[in-house]
């Protein structure tokens, strides 16, 4: 691509890119997201490509070489549960769970003749949904930030430009002063999507107001919450949107240098970003005198090295500086003393991805979406015990029920809904009574939960909430940086107590100690991650106290999950007295005489469950 020197050229380039996209007759887009790739989409690509080789005007898109998961084109569609996904343009058909053996049929029918292959389409209640847009999973969403993910070639800047990339930058650079840009972001009431929901406009204006003129723009792509992959999808599927957001931020606050900090676990995102940056530099969107103006901005990528705590702002900047990723005391805050102690705008991927459309379409338009205090949309990673797992985007304030049951399609296998864990280890558990709660920053904060980065794990009736609390606590404990005492020692002790409880060795006093520790940690820990670490415990203790009590008083796990609390017994009516269980019992807890029913010595039983596997007659029952 040529280096764009002025606005006129930019318009020309855009028109060319759009024309080029329109010329294509048939496009086969095979999802190259991490999910579909693992499902074998690379082979689909090879196969379709072979089939298309003799035909002109058929374009098959996905990376040419599969050296590792780094070189593929279209991004994640978000419907990972149904992968591998194949989308065929211009018909808009979306085929699900496509296998290599389906390729021939798809090619013959759809590619050559435009006919649908119905058996590969989404089906619900006997209704077939040919296109992505009609599928309830998508229909109930408002995809703004994720609009292009899965729909454009993520490795070609031309495709991004054709889809409207850098229109926001164009408007900012040629029609707005930096002040006006900040004003627009302030007016839009855009709030940071990384967790606490701090107003982005306020952050930017604070950076712009600093005396120090060397400033940085940093993007937090260290999406570490277990069960969250929104940012990964944006970086992989539409990297230019995020880069454009950073460019606009840099223009607004007068920064010349920016850093993107990406988790090392996201190699594909890193590859895509590298490519996108190189292409943007070549086209003149990055570097010196951007689009012929005085504005200069360089962008660097830093790979994370495996530390969840680096999602915290000051730990992240420390890591970029080559130090241990430990949060530091605040004040001074990042807007004053951020990277290399210079004023720094630090937002996450999704926040930056919102910026271009706000500039382009105006604050008022943006405020029309979502709630008055939390405008816009929010991307969630919907996972766990829900029919449609995947990446979704809904307006802020959407009731939880709509997300779980309409978008998510409810709970699989006829099970009952129990809870949603939101916001990862820093969030909390929402229970049935919260189903009609609106998902926005303030209503969640009110009940002690947190949107966090947007991980949403649905849990059904078979989930033990004490075990869930233990799981999150073990995560935070493992990821504690070890600096402040409350987090380092406190989470460790909370974990010990929870481990005791799930093993049936807890006491009622332990519950008081848990609350005591949680209260202390929430109020004294050094950083946001530490302060919110007890949330999963407190929220489950509030909503599911009876489960804790059952584990302690009755030595019973109501969900039947905690293996140490299961009671195994042999049904004498079914037992044939074969002795297989007794021979295989590692604790020698099963006794009896051949050919008559055996019994389990409950005191000796270590509840490993191996007898259940051994019994050929289904005589061993597990009592919850």
């Amino acid at each position: 691509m040529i280096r764009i020197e002025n606005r006129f050229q930019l318009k020309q380039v855009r028109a060319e890119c759009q024309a080029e996209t329109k010329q294509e007759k048939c496009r086969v887009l095979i999802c190259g997201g991490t999910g579909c790739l693992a499902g074998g989409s690379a082979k689909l690509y090879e196969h379709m490509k072979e089939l298309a080789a003799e035909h002109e005007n058929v374009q098959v898109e996905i990376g040419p070489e599969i050296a590792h998961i780094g070189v593929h084109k279209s991004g994640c569609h978000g419907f990972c549960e149904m992968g591998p996904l194949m989308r065929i343009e211009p018909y808009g058909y979306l085929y699900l769970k496509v296998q290599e053996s389906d390729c021939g049929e798809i090619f013959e029918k759809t590619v050559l003749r435009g006919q649908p292959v119905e058996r590969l389409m989404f089906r619900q209640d006997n209704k077939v949904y040919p296109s992505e847009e009609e599928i309830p999973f998508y229909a109930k969403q408002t995809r703004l930030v994720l609009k292009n993910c899965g729909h454009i070639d993520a490795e070609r800047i031309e495709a991004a430009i054709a889809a409207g990339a850098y229109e926001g930058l164009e408007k900012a650079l040629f029609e707005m002063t930096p002040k006006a840009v900040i004003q627009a972001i302030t007016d839009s009431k855009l709030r940071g999507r990384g967790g606490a929901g701090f107003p982005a406009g306020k952050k930017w204006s604070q950076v712009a107001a600093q005396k120090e003129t060397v400033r940085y723009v940093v993007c937090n792509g260290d999406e570490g919450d277990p069960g969250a992959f929104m940012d990964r999808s944006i970086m992989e599927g539409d990297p230019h949107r995020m880069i454009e957001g950073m460019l606009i931020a840099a223009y607004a606050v007068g920064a010349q240098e920016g850093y993107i900090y990406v988790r090392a676990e996201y190699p594909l995102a890193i590859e895509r970003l590298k490519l996108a940056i190189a292409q943007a530099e070549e086209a003149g969107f990055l570097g010196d005198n951007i689009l012929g103006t005085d504005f200069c901005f360089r962008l660097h990528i830093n790979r994370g090295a495996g530390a969840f705590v680096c999602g915290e702002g000051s730990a992240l900047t420390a890591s970029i500086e080559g130090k241990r990723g430990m949060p530091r005391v605040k004040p001074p805050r990042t807007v004053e003393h951020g990277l290399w102690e210079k004023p720094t705008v630090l937002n996450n991927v999704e926040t930056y991805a919102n910026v271009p459309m706000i500039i382009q379409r105006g604050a008022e338009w943006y405020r029309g979406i979502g709630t008055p205090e939390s405008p816009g949309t929010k991307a969630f990673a919907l996972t766990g015990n829900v029919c449609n797992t995947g990446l979704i985007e809904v307006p802020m304030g959407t009731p939880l029920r709509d997300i779980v049951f309409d978008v998510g399609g409810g709970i699989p296998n006829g099970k009952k809904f129990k809870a949603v864990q939101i916001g990862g280890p820093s969030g909390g558990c929402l229970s049935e009574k919260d189903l009609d709660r609106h998902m926005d920053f303030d209503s969640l904060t009110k009940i002690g939960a947190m949107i966090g980065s947007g991980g949403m794990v649905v849990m059904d009736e078979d989930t033990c909430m004490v075990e869930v609390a233990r799981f999150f606590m073990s995560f935070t404990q493992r990821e504690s940086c070890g600096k402040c005492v409350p987090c380092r020692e406190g989470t460790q002790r909370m974990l010990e107590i929870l481990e005791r409880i799930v093993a049936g060795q807890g006491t009622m006093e332990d519950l008081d100690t848990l609350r005591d520790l949680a209260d202390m940690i929430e109020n004294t820990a050094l950083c946001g991650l530490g302060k919110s670490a007890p949330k999963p415990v407190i929220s489950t203790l509030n909503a599911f106290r009876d489960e804790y009590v059952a584990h302690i008083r009755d030595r019973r796990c109501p969900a039947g999950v905690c293996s140490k609390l299961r009671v195994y017994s042999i049904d004498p009516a079914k037992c044939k007295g074969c002795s297989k269980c007794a021979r295989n019992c590692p604790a020698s807890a099963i006794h009896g005489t051949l050919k008559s029913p055996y019994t389990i010595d409950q005191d000796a039983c270590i509840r490993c469950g191996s007898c259940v596997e051994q019994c050929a007659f289904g005589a061993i029952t597990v009592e919850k």
Partner: protein
Amino acid sequence: MGFMTIDGQRVEFTNEPNVLTVIRNAEIDIPTLCYHSELSIYGACRLCTVEDDRGKTFASCAEPPRDGMVIYTNTPRLMRYRRTILELLLAAHDRDCTTCVKSGECHLLELAHRMGVDRIRFKNREAKYPIDESSPAIVRNPNKCILCGDCVRMCDNVQSVNAIDFAYRGTSTLVTPAFNKTIAQTNCVNCGQCRVVCPTGAISIKTNIDEVWDALADPNTIVVAQVAPAVRVALGDKFGIPKGENVMGKLVNALHRLGFHEVYDTTYGADLTVIEEAEELLERISSGAKGPLFTSCCPAWVKFCETRYPELADNISTCRSPQQMFGAVIREYYRNPEINQGKKLVSVSIMPCTAKKEEILRPESMTNGRQDVDYVLTTTEVASMIRKSGIRFENIDGESTDMPFGIGSGGGVIFGVTGGVTEAVLRRLQTGHSRVEMDRIRTSGVRGDDGLKELTFDYMGKEIRAAVVNGLGNADKLIKRIQSGEVSYDFVEVMACRRGCIMGGGQPVGAGPRTRKARAKGLYDTDVNMQIKKSNENPMVLALYEGLLKGKTHQLLHRNLGSTEN
């Protein structure tokens, strides 16, 4: 500048760096375990958490004071938090408190008592790390470490040594040299400042008390002591004597009672150093040698320079330190059978410094390949011996030091404070004796607390440029500037510890700004009361040059660089 309300009291503040300082200035001793006014704010212990009028909690160490602030420091929940934090620390701590070296002055234990921690709900973590006794100066016991990071910031930020740092993370976090090396395998300079700031027994002095007791009890030995200047103004801390008071007389008495046969004053050794070093400086200047002459009195500095800037090794004075000059002289003196009475000499020096323990082992400071000083006891160790013996130190009378090395000059005494060596050398180079002349030197900029002081003086019509630097971090910065050509000097005095030996790694801990000032004043006051101000006018020293030192000055007073190692 403004007012804030602390626990209902209206408190004025001016330029205090944080709310914590305002609280303490209001005479509320809010507890901390990681806050040190000399170090950067770390914010790890969270004990100084306070709450405002809206119930928001924050750590007072990190919060700048604002006008109109309303804060509470002792609400029931804050006290509960503090108790829980201490409980957590104790549970993760090797709790052999009764037999711990730090017993009696452990900050963690003191706070636990104060906050009323009366039970520990958590299982004590096992003591699993090996104790590192490899260093001649300090002992590191990670099982007692509470990860406050004071030692790390001292070693890295203040001293620029970075022999130890945090490694790993979470509950596995450990303060350690790289790859779990021992301290002896690192570039540790033995300054002991880590031990000074350590609130627990995680870093302590490697003691030689037992060896000295044994020597004192042995009928076949003569045990002599030399006492460094800075010891006399700090030892009193341990016995409730006003800060900075010179207790040299009492110490001599106590040492005699403990069984030391003779007690000498290292000030005498300092006088020898001044004479030799001034000589070397003049020679260097007249020969036009390149670069400054660095002092060599401080072994921590010498080791720092050797490891970090080996290219500057030739610029370090060839003089031995006062301890080593005097040590060699004592050893030589006791070679005389009439004096040693056929007994074995055990030479002990009593120092404010942990690095001196390493200095006596350095080949270059040995005479004919033999160690001159046998043991170094720090001020802290001597206090502990006195206490053990039951001597009521605060009540005993003073005695004077023993002959023939009993007289020192004022110039020698002020070695214990930063700038002292330079001031003594200036006196030596100054021909006059009048008070006016002494005052002129005193006010030349050589005195004071600053990490770097620069001055020029006139010697026989030639301008001599000197720098006085204390704290190795400051020295490091200065060397970089010297090497870049930004500055140049003829003479540079370096003391590894901030403010010099009075704040050495072997001194009683817990010295705040008031104590620091009092110690410096104690030495300067001692100088004021001494008749001999100049080292080169100490008659006993002059006599030595005519006697024992004749033809042996080089052998006994200078470092044998590269000559006797093999």
